[in-house]
């Protein structure tokens, strides 16, 4: 009973009052259904009153006997455990509560003795010292018990269950931009973290059964002013637990220098892992740790948040540090999506962090979080810019064989197909970035949503990207000597772009107008191809004098031969060309067929007399059939054809 100064009653009457009060208090204390607080007050009062009584007695020389007896008993209890190799809480709840009772008793006696205003009483001093000494012994013991309990009852939880996706199945578009020429990757992937968000998920880091035990230790240690010892011990073990959990997550500690030296594939998987660990650590582990601290220390004011900060700070800083290192590194285009993942993860966790560290003391952690978020945003923009530069500056020395879909095109289109998933973030980040859009698409207002998505910053940047891609492809087409092949190449590639846009969410951002325009473009290239290839071939079948009858035999023969040679030449080259898209290939064959076969049939029909002639090397049906071999990407030639 701090602050309550007892005065020694002088009169007999006073002593009677004290004795009566003491009696009442004892009787009340025996009541079964008392709240803990009330019981504590009564016990204190009891001690206090008994102290007054015994103190008065001491005048007669027999003072403090009662107190000393009580102290002895409690001391015996405490000392008996000192030589016992077992842990108290392991030995059973009865042992534990008896021990706590003994500690309580000592504490009560100490309070009572200290509350007395008798100065320089040798006996009183001796008893206080003795009680304090036993108390210290008990506190030291409780600290050990605490550590033992916290360590023994730690709950393991497997991080894999925290997410529907196992750690192994990272399917991501991780191709390095540098490898574009070597290995076109058609198969792309889904983004890994967006769909299966880790929700708020609190687990028991320490078995729920022992929480009351830990609390009772906390209570008695704090009551005896051993709170700092409790905190240091608790922080120590919990910090270790977090450290070990960190190891379970397999998060290797890397210096910034190490991170900057990582190769892309390694870096990419580490970035993924970071995104994932960050979520689990913050949303699951730290949220649970916070709850644990509150459960155990909630009754002691700001102590709980102090301990939580001490436990978690180092780990958070270590995690953030990897982010810093990544944000510093060169901003290669292939990093973009991973950077955006990291950015979104942090942005997502900001609220959690603010809740976990609401106090002034936690402002350091919050600040670091915000700083990192900002630098990751800047890095994302830089990577985006690098992506654009890489597209426009990607150069080739040799024409791409067969005129098919260029790997750069595949890379870019498959890569940007992921962008809509990051739409909000990209819009936020790109808002202030000027998009250099050459072919600005003014979309007619087709309802609010559509127009919004075609005019949002990301949409502008997307169109700017594809327009640099297009110009680059135009440059690449110039590498072909054959004009027709240039058109096949552009047709294939633009068609590919359109397909990718139409077949994904990208169409919302590119808009119908873009699609129409680009449909027109590749169809124009198809027409140009036909003109470039077939007009010279069909030239041989031309009717010079419409209306007149059949050609002379020699002219017919000559025309036939010319046609055959030209056709075979086309056949030879263009069977090696490639139109990967079956539908597009089919369409072009049909339209070619229409033109060529029709002209040939007409030509032969106009000269029925010579049809049986040997010079008619290919029948109409034959030509029609041969045309089917074109654009398969496997060169063929018409053997035994050199008969002239």
């Amino acid at each position: 009973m701090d602050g309550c100064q007892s005065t020694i009653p002088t009169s007999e009457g006073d002593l009677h009052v004290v004795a009566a009060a003491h009696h009442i208090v004892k009787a009340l204390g025996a009541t079964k259904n008392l709240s803990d607080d009330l019981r504590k007050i009564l016990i204190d009062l009891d001690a206090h009153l008994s102290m007054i009584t015994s103190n008065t007695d001491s005048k007669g020389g027999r003072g403090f006997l009662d107190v000393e007896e009580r102290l002895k008993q409690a001391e015996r209890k405490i000392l008996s455990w000192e030589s016992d190799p077992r842990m108290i809480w392991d030995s059973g709840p009865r042992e534990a509560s008896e021990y706590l009772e003994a500690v309580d008793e000592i504490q009560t006696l100490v309070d009572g003795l200290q509350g007395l205003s008798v100065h320089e009483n040798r006996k009183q001093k001796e008893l206080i010292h003795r009680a304090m000494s036993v108390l210290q012994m008990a506190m030291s013991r409780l600290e050990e018990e605490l550590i033992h309990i916290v360590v023994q009852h730690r709950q393991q939880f497997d991080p894999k269950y925290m997410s529907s996706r196992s750690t192994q199945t990272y399917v991501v578009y991780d191709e390095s931009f540098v490898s574009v020429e070597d290995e076109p990757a058609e198969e792309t992937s889904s983004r890994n973290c967006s769909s299966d968000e880790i929700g708020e998920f609190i687990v028991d880091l320490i078995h729920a059964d022992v929480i009351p035990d830990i609390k009772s230790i906390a209570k008695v240690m704090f009551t005896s002013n051993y709170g700092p010892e409790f905190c240091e011990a608790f922080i120590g073990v919990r910090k270790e637990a977090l450290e070990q959990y960190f190891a379970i997550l397999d998060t290797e500690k890397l210096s910034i220098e190490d991170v900057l030296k990582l190769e892309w594939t390694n870096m990419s998987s580490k970035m993924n892992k970071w995104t994932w660990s960050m979520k689990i650590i913050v949303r699951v582990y730290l949220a649970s740790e916070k709850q644990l601290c509150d459960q155990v220390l909630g009754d002691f004011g700001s102590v709980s948040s102090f301990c939580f900060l001490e436990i978690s700070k180092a780990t958070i800083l270590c995690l953030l540090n990897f982010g810093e290192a990544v944000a510093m590194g060169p901003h290669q285009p292939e990093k973009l999506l991973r950077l955006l993942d990291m950015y979104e993860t942090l942005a997502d966790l900001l609220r959690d962090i603010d809740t976990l560290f609401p106090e002034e003391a936690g402002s350091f952690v919050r600040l670091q979080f915000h700083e990192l978020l900002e630098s990751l945003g800047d890095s994302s923009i830089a990577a985006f810019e690098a992506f654009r530069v890489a597209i426009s500056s990607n150069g080739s020395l040799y024409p791409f064989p067969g005129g098919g879909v260029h790997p750069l095109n595949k890379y870019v289109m498959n890569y940007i197909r992921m962008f809509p998933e990051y739409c909000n973030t990209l819009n936020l980040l790109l808002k202030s970035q000027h998009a250099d859009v050459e072919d600005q698409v003014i979309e007619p207002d087709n309802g609010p949503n559509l127009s919004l998505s075609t005019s949002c910053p990301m949409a502008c940047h997307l169109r700017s990207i594809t327009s640099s891609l297009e110009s680059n492809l135009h440059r690449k087409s110039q590498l072909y000597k054959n004009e027709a092949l240039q058109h096949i190449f552009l047709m294939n590639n633009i068609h590919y772009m359109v397909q990718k846009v139409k077949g994904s969410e990208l169409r919302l951002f590119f808009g119908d107008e873009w699609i129409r325009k680009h449909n027109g473009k590749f169809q124009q290239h198809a027409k140009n191809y036909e003109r470039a290839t077939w007009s010279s071939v069909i030239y041989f079948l031309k009717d010079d004098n419409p209306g007149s009858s059949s050609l002379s035999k020699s002219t017919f023969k000559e025309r036939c031969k010319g046609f055959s040679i030209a056709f075979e030449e086309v056949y030879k080259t263009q069977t090696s060309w490639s139109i990967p898209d079956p539908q597009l290939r089919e369409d072009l064959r049909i339209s070619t067929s229409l033109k060529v076969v029709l002209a040939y049939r007409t030509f032969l029909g106009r000269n029925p007399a010579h049809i049986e002639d040997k010079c008619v090397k290919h029948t109409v049906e034959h030509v029609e059939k041969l045309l089917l071999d074109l654009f398969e990407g496997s060169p063929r030639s018409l053997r035994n054809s050199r008969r002239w």
Partner: protein
Amino acid sequence: MPATDYQASFLGRISLRRNQVIAMDGNHEQEDLELFSKHVSERFTELLSPPDDVVFDTLLSISWLRKLLDVFLCCEAEFKAVLMMGDDDHPFQISKPPLDRLIHEFLDRSIKALDLCNAVTNGLDSVRHYQKLAEIAASALGQKPIGDGQARRSRKALNSLLMAMSVDDKECSAVKTTERSWSFSRLAVNKDRSPGHLRQVAKKWSAAKQIQAMTWNLVPPRGAEGSGLASPVYTMSVIMVFVMWALAAAIPCQERNGLSATYFPVRKQWSWDQSITGLHEKIAEEWKEKEKKGAAGLLSEVQKMEKLVRNLMEFTDSFQFHGGTDEKAEEAADHAAELAEICKRMEEGLLPLQMKIKEVFHRIVRSRAEFLQALKQGGKSSAPPV
């Protein structure tokens, strides 16, 4: 410090060259360079021996380190201004050889400095742990009269504190499974609990090696280089290495063996040489002392703390057997009060120091990005037009 060896032979030539340079292009760039050098010199002189009207901070105290970091930030800002502003007259000078190489080397050094900042930040957590234990000991001994209970309570905390200090110190050389400060009790048998208090930067990382690596290619510019922008790059490098070295010496961090071997190839050519060399020598001297005694770092608060802790240990030891005489108790109470005072200073100073280190960290990161950007732009513009 062999710096003095150079002096006689080079000094004459240096002054000669300076005159030539000024004659050649006595423009304001030269003035800027000299001003930068002068400011650096002034700032470090103040750290070495502050003028009378300034509150004196003990060398390597928390407040001194904060001042040191402020000096670093000021020098860094001016350094960047000198190098970048020069661009008006000499566009993209920094992206041309030999300056581009020097800048790249400088940037490599700054990455190492970042890791050092992190190591030291981890180390401050250890110091914070010392503080908490010292608080317990001080408050137990601050009670009157001191009984056996308080003596033992304080003894336990002091013991843990000394153990924590020696663990951190040992971890500087080898990271082993060390029992934590509390584990000398019956739980010591329970060896599966591992790590010591000091958090690693990375496996096999070594503060001493990092700092040595920072000095590998740190050579004073020679010949005509010495008068151009190479000189501030060199100056700033020396400042960076020195600051990181001082931090590592003061605050516990991973692997500090061989820290005393750090050698700064400074020369009298610069006006700041004396002050930095002076500081370096003073600290190196203390470090040598430390290596003999074994302590958790040169942070003056920690050193004082350690001394007090040993005194108080002695007191509590004797208390156990003889009880305290009044005289001894008085002395112990004084020591406890001093210890409490140090704890208070730590309570006030550690977090701001940690934040200051982070500020330095972020500054280095930002400057590195700006330099890289400038190098890139310069590289583009100076390339022949295609």
